[in-house]
């Protein structure tokens, strides 16, 4: 079986500083995999490398069977990356933004279908024709999730998708992510909200100081460490280590 993502021995250094240190994990098709850890642990760097934004110092990454070193352009065709606290072009309307992004993937009728799908995912209805500068943070995030999902990526990479959102908006966004995974899209997300990943993720990887310190299904890991929450699991695992 071809995994959506395979990361082997991934390292990233900036001079003497090692940001990501020999990290290995994989994401299965249709699976939600969560990378958790504190600020500066190396989560975003890992996601940026997988998204082809940063170059790895060593290791191997394969997305949908495509080797990153050999064909980074090919990988960009089957992933969607949503950065933490991302925004959009504020002078465009929501529809114009989706049109702009869809034009990188397809043309003609197929593009119209893709944009309509995006509008549906965003749930923005009439507001899709308003300028993005008038959107609330929740509306903006729904638009960006829609942008990330509408081209039917094989792997969606979502960095801190609910950070800064209120309870209602965060709940809606999490629902969208669950729906994405049900439709067969693999999701790699990062968060330092451990309650959120406990709810959302099929499997998690804990990262700290650039190293992956554990990996597995939340329920299995909680059982193994005899704890009730992922948060407790993290503390216990770290102390044990």
């Amino acid at each position, binding site marked *: 079986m071809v995994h959506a993502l395979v990361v082997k021995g991934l390292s990233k250094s*900036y001079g003497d500083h090692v940001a990501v240190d020999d990290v290995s994990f994989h994401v299965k098709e249709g699976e939600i995999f969560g990378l958790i850890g504190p600020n*500066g642990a190396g989560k975003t760097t890992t996601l940026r490398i997988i*998204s*082809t*934004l*940063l170059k790895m110092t060593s290791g191997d990454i394969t997305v949908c069977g495509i080797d990153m070193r050999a064909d980074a352009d090919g990988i960009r065709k089957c992933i969607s*990356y949503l950065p933490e606290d991302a925004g959009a072009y504020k*002078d465009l309307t929501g529809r114009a933004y989706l049109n702009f992004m869809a034009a990188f993937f397809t043309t003609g009728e197929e593009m119209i279908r893709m944009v309509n799908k995006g509008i549906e995912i965003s749930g923005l209805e009439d507001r899709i024709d308003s300028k993005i500068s008038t959107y609330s943070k929740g509306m903006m995030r729904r638009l960006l999730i829609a942008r990330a999902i509408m081209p039917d990526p094989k792997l969606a990479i979502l960095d801190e998708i609910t950070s800064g959102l209120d309870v209602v908006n965060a709940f809606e966004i999490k629902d969208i992510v669950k729906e994405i995974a049900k439709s067969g899209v693999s999701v790699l997300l990062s968060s330092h909200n451990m309650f959120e990943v406990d709810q959302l993720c099929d499997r998690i990887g804990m990262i700290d100081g650039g190293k992956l310190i554990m990996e597995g299904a939340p329920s299995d890991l909680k059982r193994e460490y005899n704890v009730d929450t992922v948060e407790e699991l993290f503390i216990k695992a770290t102390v044990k280590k």
Partner: protein
Amino acid sequence: MSHLWNLIRKELKELMTPASVISIIVVAAVFASMGTMISSEADRVMEPPTIGILNMSDDNENIACAIGYIDDFYIRTYGVPSGNYLIHMNVVPEDRYAIIAWMQERNITVLFAFDADYSDNISQIADGTGSRGLITVYYSEVSTGVFGTVSTSIINMMISHINMRTSEAIIGDLIGNGGDGASNIRSPIQVSNNTVFGGTMHEGLTPSDISSALQTQSFLMPILIMIIITMIGGMIISSMGNEKENKTLETLLTMPVARTTIVTGKLLGSTIAGLAFGLAYLVGMYFYMDSMNVGNMSTDNIGLTLALTDWGIIAMMIFLAILCALGMCMILGAFVKNYKAAQTLTLPITVLAMVPMFVIMFADFNTLPGVLQGILFAIPFTHPMMVMNNLMLGNTFLIWTGLGYLMIFSLLTIYLTVRIYNSDILLTGLIRKKRSPPKSLFGRSRDRTK
């Protein structure tokens, strides 16, 4: 729709917002309307003036001569006789305020009052017994603007002409030769100006004449290029700052499109916006600068004209200069973290545009010291600033080397920009070599286990 066109359209939409377009059109319109106002004022000044004539003398012989000289001046200067422009005050005024009141009633701004002894005095000069004839000039409600000095100059020129012709008439009476003889005695030296400029001999012209003819080009192009470069440079750096702050650049870089296409799209979109804004400014500035050129010689007068191919070279140079500026801005923008930080990074571009502007406006590149020439040549914005004058004067070496330099410079900046877009620097900035490791939330826990 091609990816490149998609990116260019997005860039144009971002840069040419209603707010930015309106503000640029307003500025251009303000310049143009200022020019139109100045032109109409200048045209008014250049029309034959209506002059009041007051004769307080009983003997009209020499006054009739003076009026004849005025007529001669009108024909030489305006091509029309003075008949319709001279209004005689036929009543004897009680005092000078009565003269002013008479002028104001008739909307006359200048009046020549010939003194009661004017004619007698002029007649007696040849005998050596008379004093000089007195003409009192009254000005009423004259313009205090720039062109007020022009109207005064014209009146002074008219008085000088009367003076010269009266003097020649007196000399003619004395020597018994009223023709060239009197004129030669009065001005025994004849001057013939010849100025070599741009390798060509210009007969009958002084450097001042040539300088005034090139005034529009010398001022317009440097100002225009400086405005375009600083404006579009600021826009692109701010746009980069916005893209980084909103992380739209990160998103864009993960799209299935080549980095070269992204860079090219950004550059071309910004260049088109820059050219459009530049054209708006050009029209406005042209009207403004042209109106300031009243009375000066035009480039056509001295045989300096531009062919269609010359305009093509000018357009190419402006295009390349904008491309160089944008390339530099995108390189600088790569190190910007947010919109606020972007504002400070426009300074280097502004300085690079202002230095050649001031030098080219007030000095001739060819007469500058070698070091300064080298520095100016290295600044890409210098070349479009002086291209118009270089084309007119046939400085082909500077034109072609400048064009070649701009091409190399723009290609180099595009290459560097693409390299940066393909590197980590765009997202991480320049990272210092020595950096403490990130804090670990669990570092203290680990320590406790030791």
